[in-house]
């Protein structure tokens, strides 16, 4: 069950896995996510479905190693299996014919943006994509994004590849140059989504973000994932993950993401210590 069929290493910290999950693949839609446990003692962690193949019965996820669970996941190889996989969860992206749309993917957020861009294009939209990362090594899927975009802008924070810029810069320019942008999707770290939303706000362009709050069950049962959108409390796992970026209380999201920092540090150090002894 939930066997890893393929693995690709994009960088030291960014990896792709293809997992067998036929029932989930049958139902998966752009914008949705799954929850996995790497091992029985593991945490339930959400990952966005970056791609799916209904015929093969597979799901593709791209993840960044930031702590114990994702690092542990990074050690698995094809043939290994996940302890559990639940999905598809969350509401799918609302795909319609909007006209011209911009899809912004930052860092590991490029992965979740891909199926959205693909579906938007299939629905007849003119898709402009902006993908960016801190540095060249962290960039991936430039080719894949190219195939689903009418225009593609690539940038890195440090200028190590293509344009040296934060994704908000080309976003702002595009909005200044074209007055026909109907909608923007921005997915990446919370701070990036916050600034993309701030960038689009003066232009009055609806901006959809995919929030990554801490989750436990991801079925609406615990409230760990709650955020405030338009002054109302929402559960990201069932009401989202996509919300109107102009209405999100970003500071609350950022604060809530940091609840367990000391514990996460401890878990990571413990994992690294154990892992190094094993390797030796």
């Amino acid at each position, binding site marked *: 069950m939930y066997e890893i069929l393929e693995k690709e290493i994009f960088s030291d910290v960014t990896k792709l896995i293809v997992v067998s999950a036929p*029932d989930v693949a049958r*139902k998966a839609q752009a914008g949705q996510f799954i929850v996995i446990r790497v091992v029985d003692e593991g945490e339930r962690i959400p990952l966005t479905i970056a791609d799916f193949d209904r015929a093969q019965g597979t799901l593709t996820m791209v993840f960044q190693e930031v702590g114990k669970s994702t690092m542990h996941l990074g050690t698995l190889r094809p043939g290994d299996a996940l302890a559990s996989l*639940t*999905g598809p969860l969350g509401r799918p992206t609302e795909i319609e014919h909007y006209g011209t749309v911009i899809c912004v993917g930052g860092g590991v957020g490029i992965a979740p943006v891909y199926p959205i861009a693909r579906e938007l294009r299939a629905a007849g939209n003119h898709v402009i994509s902006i993908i960016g990362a801190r540095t060249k090594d962290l960039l991936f899927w430039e080719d894949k994004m190219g195939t689903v975009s009418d225009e593609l802008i690539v940038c890195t924070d440090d200028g190590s590849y293509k344009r040296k810029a934060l994704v908000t810069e080309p976003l702002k320019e595009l909005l200044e140059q074209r007055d026909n942008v109907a909608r923007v999707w921005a997915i990446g770290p919370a701070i990036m989504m916050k600034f993309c939303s701030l960038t689009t706000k003066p232009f009055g362009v609806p901006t959809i973000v995919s929030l990554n709050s801490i989750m436990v069950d991801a*079925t609406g049962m615990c*409230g760990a994932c709650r*955020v405030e959108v338009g002054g109302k409390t929402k559960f990201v796992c069932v009401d989202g993950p996509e919300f109107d970026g102009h209405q999100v209380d970003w500071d609350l999201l950022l604060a809530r993401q940091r609840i367990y920092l000391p514990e996460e540090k401890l878990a990571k150090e*413990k994992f690294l210590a154990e892992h190094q002894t094993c390797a030796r």
Partner: protein
Amino acid sequence: MSEPIKELTTKERMAIPRHEMPRQEAMERRKNFFEVALGYSAEQAREEAERCLQCKKPTCIEGCPVEVRIPEFILALRSGDMPGAVQALKSKNNLPAICGRVCPQETQCEINCVLAKKGKPVAIGRLERYVADWELGQGVIPPELPPPTGKKVAVVGAGPAGLTCAADLARMGHQVTIFEALHAPGGVLMYGIPEFRLPKKIVLAEVNYVKSLGVELRLNAVIGKLFTLDELLDELLNEQGYDAVFLGTGAGLPMFMNIPGENYNGVYSANEFLTRVNLMKGYLFPEWDTPVKVGKKVAVVGAGNVAMDAARCALRLGTIRALEEGSELPEVHIVYRRSRAEMPARAEEVENAQEEGVIFDLLTNPVEIYGKDGWVSGMRCIRMELGEPDASGRRQPVPIPGSEFDMDVDTVIMALGTRPNPMVFTASGGLERTKHGTVVADEITGRTTKARVWAGGDIVTGAATVISAMGAGKRAAADIDRFLRGE
């Protein structure tokens, strides 16, 4: 040593005092998550069983939602016929090791025991636990199953309602698949009720019994997402094509108070807190990966079983940490807007909590949570008094003007009750629901307004009890069986 079996007179029986449950000492149990109640010894069980008068009209049975054959199992127990006791018990109750531990006996079977009129009732729940634990110790032998009927039933939710319904249907020869959203079966038994009250190995043993009847358990399957209800019923979409569906998805949606400050770090729903502690084994962090945070001063809002469990978990986590750090012991408060008499929790658990050192702030209601740098830093409360009884006969709490005061707390756990999770209804019409979100179902049969769909447990009643959920699962199984046989 126990005496050789001899017939006692009624007077002699009534002279035997009720046997207290051996328990871990209060200060000791604050430091661990091991079971608090240790269970009767063989001798204690035998002696307690001798108290039963074997009434011709056993009123005790009327109090039990699944009508356990109480005098019969007690007689077998005291005659030394343990397999007979197991059989009598299990003919009505598929999960006795659980009920013996968590049933609110004092308001169900025991309150109806004749002995309760003059003194203390027979400790029916404790005896039930004793018999069930004996059986688990022996290795459970599954009953013989009738030939398969060829009918398929999908049960949604692996809580007590679903497990009971599935077990009964399997015992009637139907093929049953349980779909459970979480990665572990048991529902509230697994994610809500803590280890020290209901060890998870007991829950898993009871689940294994259900599986031994041939029931298939599909974990990580969220109905409404992975399959819709209509898809389960539809042979064209689903090669399985279930003949009937039982919904036992419980009432798992947490409620908040909607007061300012509820989203600060350090405010938990009881569901989140208990799930982290129990299902995810947060108390074993970092051996297990899921963290849970408890401060030095914790307020738990509410006074049901959920609140007691959250308070006692918080107390344990805080005490263990304080002992490790050599710091001050934590303070855990129950904040409740009514008085002691109205507290909905089991009496035994309120007592346990109090013994362990939980502080009760009654007739007190929070109005606002304060924060500092994103974290809870205090809670403003108002004192309440009980007003006139309302239509339901309960005296309503009313705030005393000007009585606001601030509590210095760093963790707040909201245990205000729960509602059914609407996820299961996604994209499936025809199912009538009340304004509280519960499903409308026939009280006796569990039939809903949608053809071939039954429901029972907390999804119908709202948050209730393990045994009432099991009773509903049982009645629905009987009706589903009638339907499948074309009666």
